[in-house]
């Protein structure tokens, strides 16, 4: 243990400079995520000890420059300047740069030199540079830049000791000085500084002048009034007249300085060698081959999410079912047992069941991003997505949402533009996820069966396929339309810059991929889990209470009696000889009668529960959809998780929770109950109306919880819930009313 004060070190670099690799290599598993109020960025913080000193490491988001354009980008700048209350001002700033692209990466370094803090330059990927024939004289580079320079191979852990030693010796030294700007520029900075006073650090005054319409300008014009705006315009006008127009003056000054340093320290081969990236890109960004590879890859991802995750999810469901049964066996019946079995175990299972899909998708995202393909995918799909006001980066989140919106929404982090990211998050749940599939297939099988010996009045062989296709199309068509609408109304704003770097291809490391998968899974369980769990328990309570029928007899007692009767009949069945048949038949009928009676009591319980009463009260609201109050109650009960709607319908129609593969029993029960109402006359429009409702409705509390986590407030999940429920209601209404007219016309 040490008694000295820990050293705060900030890691800054361009995206793909290897910043996260360095951060993970230095801090190992001692990491946590720092959140900042009012913004959606997260920064990782890690800790390690070396030479008796504790290092507090902050990993800033990858950036090309300190020119902040949004509150999110400003957090990084404020953090570096010690202007955030949550973090101390960094003692040392580590600028990590790519050895194969020093000319560009050192631009950011030159901005960091203006912060007035000691800087260490870590030159990463020196092995790749050497392979390309780039030779770097590190001493000369350090001399030219005026700060210590450390060569590094972060992915192999080479140079880490030298880096920590250099950070230690650099802490507390005189801050370096960056490139010199033209005198005209410095004069304007001095004038503005005098105007604004000492509260605004010099580096921000420079950004105010340089970043036209940037965040610093918005902020200071907001606090100092429009007078500052006029002043700025005049100053920029004078600079343009003097041949130092912003922002060009910054690029010229900094790149001139960088060129000079690089010329003195770096020797490059005269002819640029053909790299692996050149060769791979010839195929992967090719109009034909690139597109083919892309779709093949997406098919693979989709298949893995859809099919690969299923056995794991089934295993998890079985496991929780088994635990539930085991607990049921050892506990006396009553509210506590039901809370633990249906509420707690069911609730935890409802959270854990999403983990396979989240981890599989994040495994793919990590591989695609780390190897550099993600940017190519965005490049290939950009034009298509631009038609709905988004960019290519929204494609993978949207596609993943066809499997499950939760990993899809979590993967929108690759979208830097806040509005695009929000629009993608808000429409992702419209894509038909895998939880909707069982609802579609069961209702289709029950109400639109294919013509066969069992169903002489069934439909043509292609009807179920077309219905299923139509349900998926609802999502594929509605999501882009809503996105476009949002981008034109609520999320309207200046067209963002879509320029994007296509990084050099790299081999992803298994370690980094596994780390991302585990992080994503853990983040989901920890942040979303509690909300999902609470909702599950809530809906359990709404369906469980009151626990006694109107005569005051507890349902549990009635069920126990029925179970006893069934057990007696079964015992009789075992003892009875094969003859006479009548006696056996009687016992068998007694078993079946007990089952039916149990289903009836369960149905009565649900119907009389608080939720059932609400469903009853809502009957006038759902009547225009062709629904009776039972369907309304089932829809209500499945708001936390849509997949329960089928089981819930089964229970409410007294056929039990397990409705079987083809749902014949449910269909018969529903038809019988519907005989007097609209469903009796129009069973198919009603079934379609339920399906359309499920296709468009936000019946997934997990998605809402993840949305809240990713957007930082309840505002957006609430908005999504309202608009999707409205859309679902209108969609179901139109489906039933049109279906009814069609059915009437067809006689």
């Amino acid at each position: 243990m040490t008694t000295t004060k820990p050293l705060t070190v900030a890691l800054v670099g361009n995206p793909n400079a290897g910043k996260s690799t360095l951060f993970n290599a230095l801090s190992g598993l001692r990491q946590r995520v720092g959140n900042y109020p009012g913004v959606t960025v997260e920064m990782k913080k890690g800790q390690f000890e070396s030479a008796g000193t504790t290092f507090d490491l902050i990993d800033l988001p990858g950036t090309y420059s300190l020119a902040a354009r949004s509150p999110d980008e400003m957090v990084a700048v404020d953090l570096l300047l010690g202007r955030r209350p949550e973090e101390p001002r960094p003692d040392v700033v580590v600028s990590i740069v790519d050895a194969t692209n020093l000319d560009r990466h050192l631009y950011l370094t030159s901005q960091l030199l203006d912060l007035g803090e000691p800087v260490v330059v870590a030159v990463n990927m020196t092995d790749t540079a050497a392979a390309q024939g780039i030779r770097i004289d590190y001493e000369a580079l350090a001399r030219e830049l005026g700060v210590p320079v450390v060569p590094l191979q972060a992915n192999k852990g080479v140079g880490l000791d030298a880096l920590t030693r250099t950070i230690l010796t650099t802490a507390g030294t005189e801050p370096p000085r960056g490139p010199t700007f033209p005198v005209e520029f410095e004069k304007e900075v001095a004038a503005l500084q005098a105007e604004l006073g000492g509260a605004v650090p010099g580096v921000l005054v420079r950004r105010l002048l340089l970043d036209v319409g940037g965040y610093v300008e918005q902020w200071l014009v907001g606090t100092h009034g429009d007078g500052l705006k006029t002043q700025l315009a005049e100053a920029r006008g004078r600079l343009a007249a003097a041949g130092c127009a912003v922002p060009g003056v910054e690029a010229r000054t900094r790149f001139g300085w960088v060129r000079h340093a690089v010329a003195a320290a770096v020797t490059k081969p005269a002819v640029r060698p053909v790299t692996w990236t050149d060769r791979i890109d010839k195929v992967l960004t090719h109009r034909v081959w690139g597109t083919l590879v892309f779709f093949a890859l997406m098919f693979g991802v989709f298949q893995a999410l859809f099919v690969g995750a299923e056995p794991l999810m089934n295993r998890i469901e079985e496991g929780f079912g088994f635990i539930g049964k085991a607990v049921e066996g050892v506990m006396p019946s009553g509210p506590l047992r039901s809370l633990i079995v249906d509420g707690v175990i069911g609730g935890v299972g409802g959270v854990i069941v999403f983990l396979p899909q989240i981890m599989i998708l994040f495994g793919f995202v990590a591989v695609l991003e780390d190897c550099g393909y993600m940017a190519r995918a965005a490049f290939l799909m950009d034009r298509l997505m631009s038609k709905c006001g988004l960019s290519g980066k929204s494609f993978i989140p949207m596609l993943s949402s066809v499997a499950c919106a939760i990993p899809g929404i979590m993967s929108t982090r690759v979208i830097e533009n806040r509005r695009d990211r929000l629009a993608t998050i808000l429409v992702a749940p419209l894509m038909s996820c895998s939880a909707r599939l069982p609802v579609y297939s069961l209702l289709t099988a029950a109400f639109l069966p294919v013509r066969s010996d069992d169903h002489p009045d069934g439909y043509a062989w292609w009807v179920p396929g077309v219905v299923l296709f139509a349900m998926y199309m609802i999502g594929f068509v509605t999501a882009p339309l809503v996105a476009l609408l949002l981008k034109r109304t609520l999320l309207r704003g200046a067209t963002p810059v879509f320029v994007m770097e296509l990084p050099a291809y790299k081999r992803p490391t298994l370690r980094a991929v596994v780390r991302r998968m585990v992080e994503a899974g853990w983040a989901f369980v920890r942040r979303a889990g509690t909300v999902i769990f609470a909702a599950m328990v809530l809906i359990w309570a709404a369906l469980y209470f009151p626990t006694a029928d109107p005569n005051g007899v507890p349902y549990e007692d009635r069920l126990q009696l029925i179970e006893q009767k069934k057990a007696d009949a079964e015992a009789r069945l075992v003892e009875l000889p094969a003859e006479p048949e009548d006696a056996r038949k009687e016992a068998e009928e007694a078993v079946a009668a007990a089952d039916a009676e149990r289903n009836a009591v369960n149905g009565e319980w649900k119907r009389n529960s608080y939720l059932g009463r609400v469903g009853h009260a809502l009957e006038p609201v759902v009547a225009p959809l062709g629904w009776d109050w039972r369907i309304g109650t089932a829809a209500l009960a499945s708001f936390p998780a849509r997949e329960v709607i089928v089981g819930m319908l089964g229970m409410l129609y007294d056929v039990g929770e397990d409705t079987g593969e083809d749902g014949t029993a449910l269909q018969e029960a529903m038809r019988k109950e519907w005989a007097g109402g609209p469903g009796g006359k129009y069973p198919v429009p009603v079934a379609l109306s339920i399906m359309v409702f499920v296709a468009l409705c936000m019946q997934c509390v997990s998605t809402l919880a993840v949305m809240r986590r990713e957007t930082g407030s309840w505002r957006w999940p609430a908005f999504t819930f309202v608009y999707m429920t409205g859309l679902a209601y209108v969609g179901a209404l139109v489906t039933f009313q049109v279906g009814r007219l069609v059915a009437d016309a067809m006689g």
Partner: protein
Amino acid sequence: MPTLADLHPGQSAVVVSLAGDPALVQRLYELGLFEGEAVEVLALAPLGDPVEVRVGNSRLSLRKAEAANVTVSTP
């Protein structure tokens, strides 16, 4: 004068000037695309937009509308 949006894959040029939205110009500068730099168009996306260009040792993807702000001179 042609712009970066007019070039075909395989064509090279030198950047003459940048215009348009200050945020876009600034981002292009930050990515190393500025006056006097050599650029090469590497590929066009399947629907003809965006374009992939190389500048220095970086590869960038620009939408055509953005590339049209970059005036270039071809040899």
